[in-house]
């Protein structure tokens, strides 16, 4: 079974909630297939305060005002079980979680 060390960038509010300081990206270890679901499961397991903030509790649906980007592409609507781009799985590119730029 392969291990992946995936680079993740969180919105500032979620960094604070997770108790992270600074603006650097974080590394999340994913065991097995590198999918969006596996990555977010691993992220929430490492930072339990993030549960329910990126995906809704229950159905684990992406929250409406958040988007996932990788390799300069919006992959928000990809299946959560589809493989992440190889560049993300291998750690060359970052998995970016972005809040919609809206509201006051």
């Amino acid at each position: 079974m392969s291990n992946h060390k995936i680079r993740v960038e969180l919105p500032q509010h979620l960094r604070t909630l997770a108790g992270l300081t600074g603006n650097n990206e974080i590394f999340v270890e994913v065991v097995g297939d590198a999918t969006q679901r596996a990555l977010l499961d691993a992220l929430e397991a490492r930072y339990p305060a993030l549960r329910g903030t990126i995906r809704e509790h229950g159905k684990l649906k992406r929250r409406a005002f958040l988007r996932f980007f990788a390799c300069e592409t919006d992959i928000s609507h990809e299946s959560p079980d589809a493989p992440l781009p190889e560049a993300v799985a291998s750690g060359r590119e970052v998995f970016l979680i972005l809040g919609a730029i809206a509201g006051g």
Partner: protein
Amino acid sequence: MSQVRVLVGTKKGAFVLAADGKRENWQVSGPHFGGWEIYHLKGSPADPNRIYASQSSSWFGQIVQRSDDGGATWNPVNNKFAYEGTPGTHQWYDGTPHPWEFKRVWHFEPSLTDPDSVYAGIEDAALFQSKDGGISWTELSGLRGHGTGPEWQPGAGGMCLHTVILDPEDANRIYIAISAAGAFRSDDAGQSWKPINRGLYSKYIPNPTAEVGHCVHHIAMHPTRPGVLFMQKHWDVMRSDDAGDNWRDISGNLPTDFGFAIDVHPHESETLFVVPIKSDSEHYPPEGKLRVYRSRSGGEEWEPLTRGLPQENCYVNVLRDAMAIDRLDDCGVYFGTTGGQVYASTNSGDSWSPIVRDLPAVLSVEVQTIP
């Protein structure tokens, strides 16, 4: 000397205002959770260092924060509020069925005796309880399931359970209020519920005297007379002397009986405070004058309290959970405005001064009296 701690929830964070019993010099800490909406914070009567805070945003949803040191530090606890069983539907604004969906916590009500026990009133309206300090939450589903739930409809601000009152003399008795369903009472610690809206008259609903459907804005109870309740409804200030079984209008000479906040003096059970707001389409004080009205006769006769409050060009609102009263002998009354001011009176409302003037819009104000 006693201390008071005023807990302020705003559109962009939480603030803790602390002073000794003289309440002259205030220490302001915050913003805590800067940038997030803080609908409500409330301390445990059993342990003033235990405070629960509702933190939310449209982007990231609901967070529940807990402090065990009086608001100096905070830790997130469980934010999962799962309706019991299949949630079913309530009515949407247009009268069509709409599935129950969790949106946010409007109000925390800690137990009177156990700091780990706390109730949460949420939108879409339901009552949850934690018995482990917020580590887990369970719905008291008898409320939504008592029969009228499918008839409930949201108010303009959403279908929120915003008021939870625990009877200090009867641990089994709980009152709650929902916009726009009305008031409900449980006499068995939240297992079963009944609507308590007899006497309410709401001309804007198809049946103005319906069992449910009334837009109750807030309810207050005096702790030594838990059967006497005071209500600020959408329109009308109301009173019940029989634990909500019957209500009567006590609006009397108020300049308008629309408003949100209502509270009771801790030492004078017939002394009430409201902040009249012009109308449901103009959420600001009449004539641009910010006036608290006090009744010392249990309603009907009201006097305006204006000293220290702006009496011209004031167009702020005072929301339902944004008024609180401390328990000191010369009781302090506090309220926050959507303009970011938190006003305090240390003489039962005779005069007022701002503790802070330029916070984000204030959503809630609670006060802890610490011996």
